[in-house]
């Protein structure tokens, strides 16, 4: 089996597991971490393609993803902290407040 294929399949699996985690788990922080897992999956697929191709674009993009992820987590976590302070609960179900 081709290395690239394998790695891309692994990346896809990691992404799916991350998305599943967002859907399945109840804790807000766990959901945040699953979103990080999704980002990692994407990074892996980019690296796999960068390894195979001649250009550096894949590697550059991965680096940019790292930066963006860092910035994102720097904002997301304070927001979560504020929310939890307000609601006093880490349960995602508590935040479904639209009337529907």
């Amino acid at each position: 089996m081709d290395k690239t294929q394998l790695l891309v399949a692994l990346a896809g699996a990691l992404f799916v597991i991350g998305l599943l985690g967002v859907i399945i788990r109840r804790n807000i922080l766990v959901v945040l971490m699953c979103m990080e897992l999704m980002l990692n999956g994407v990074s892996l697929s980019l690296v796999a393609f960068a390894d195979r191709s001649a250009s550096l674009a894949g590697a550059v993009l991965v680096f940019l993803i790292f930066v963006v992820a860092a910035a994102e987590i720097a904002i997301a976590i304070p927001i979560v902290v504020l929310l939890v302070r307000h609601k006093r609960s880490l349960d995602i179900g508590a935040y479904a407040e639209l009337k529907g």
Partner: protein
Amino acid sequence: MIENLLIYFFGALALTGAVLMLILRHPMRVALALILTMLCLGAIYGLLGLHAIAVFQVLIYVGAVMVFMIYVIMLLDLRDPSFRERYSRWLVPGSAVGVVLFMLIAGALRREDATQAGMSASGIDVQAFSVAFLADYWLHFELVSVLLVAAVVAALAIILLKRPDRG
């Protein structure tokens, strides 16, 4: 040869870590599982020859992001229903769709397509990496730094939101 074995090994380990994330109950343990996955990914990057990326993976993801996560987990240690009941009400439908997706991925793997062996194992060294940033991708670099400044400002704003009366 050994390289491929190692890639398989670390790949399997990463997958295990990811699955563990779904199963473990305590958020701290989930964080540790995620750290394991990230480290394995870093190892894979290194085995592929992209040492710069591997280093940054460990430095930024594990070193900054996950540390921050662990701080928060320790801070918000509430034993509320989400602690006792791990799974939300979407367990069954989510898992069903997830299984379908896995089958798709597995099926894609089984397809014997003609593959061309691209250039591999040569890797990308740090010098080429940095030159690329200063030559071809300098705009993206600058924009990302702007993004970081915005993130800093936003974080400050949130902090000040928390303490309106103090200076």
